[in-house]
């Protein structure tokens, strides 16, 4: 298969995650194989495109609110990547009912237990929360 073609699709999908957090994990998954893509990877990529096709009208909704309380959620998977045995961190933050910042990223170290994996996720989530708090304090 032509790696350039694969890279061009994944690149387009990567930019699409700006406002489409529902495909973020899937895009992360297919991005691991941009060096030497196989047909199974292209199949997964096409599946995301099919999903996007069926959900074109999805948008993020923000409405006026006085409530500025922020809530964050995080989780980790377990050995998402079979080759390097690393897990994927995922977190997102809500203000009232609207999500405004999110992330899905493979962890940089190998966790030896599910407990450790959860700690790694919690740490990156809290780092982000601290940054958010500082930003909001500055804006006040």
């Amino acid at each position, binding site marked *: 298969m032509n790696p350039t073609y694969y890279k061009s699709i994944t690149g387009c999908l990567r930019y699409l995650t700006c406002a489409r957090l529902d495909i973020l994990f899937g895009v992360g998954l297919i991005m691991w194989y941009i060096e030497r893509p196989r047909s199974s990877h292209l199949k*997964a990529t096409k599946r995301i495109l099919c999903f996007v096709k069926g959900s074109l009208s999805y948008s993020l909704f923000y409405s006026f609110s006085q409530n500025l309380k922020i809530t964050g959620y995080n989780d980790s998977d377990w050995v998402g990547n079979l080759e390097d045995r690393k897990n994927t961190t995922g977190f997102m933050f809500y203000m009232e009912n609207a999500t405004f910042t999110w992330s899905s990223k493979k962890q940089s170290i190998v966790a030896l237990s599910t407990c450790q994996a959860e700690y790694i996720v919690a740490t990156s989530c809290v780092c982000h929360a601290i940054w958010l708090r*500082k930003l909001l304090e500055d804006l006040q």
Partner: protein
Amino acid sequence: MNVKSAFLNGTLEEEVYVDQPPSFVVKKEEKVYRLKKSLYRLKEAPRAWNSIIDGYLTKNEFVRCPYEHSLYVKINLQGKVMFVYLYIDDLSFTRDDFIMIQDFKQSMVKEFEMIDLGLMTYFLGIKVKWCSNEIFISQIKYAAEVLKKFAMEDYQLIDNPVEHRIKLTKERE
């Protein structure tokens, strides 16, 4: 608002020389030009432009947010707030007070050659739809372009992006 030919506004601190342009060569002289202002495709151009716009905003009592470097905040004497978000040569802004925006636009137009694009509706492939107190943000147009580019017209629709418990590997299967 968008700044026209933004990079040409930058002033160079480094010594940069260019050859004489092909259509404007003085044959007798074997000379090159030394640039005072920046040109497009120059390594230094983005930095030079950012220094200019940063200097300008700082001079106008905007404070750069230390946690988000492209965000500038101004609080005037009446306690009204204005935010300016800078993306290379595009400025998007919001405010408490309408007069503040008018003043800002006027002074910007004096300093740089600007285009006022009005209310933000489409920015970097992201569509913004305004309804009174509500905003919808989507990439519907960009997504449609991507689907067209990769000829996805005949594919069927799927209601989830990733197969359940999928395990991809590097190996040839």
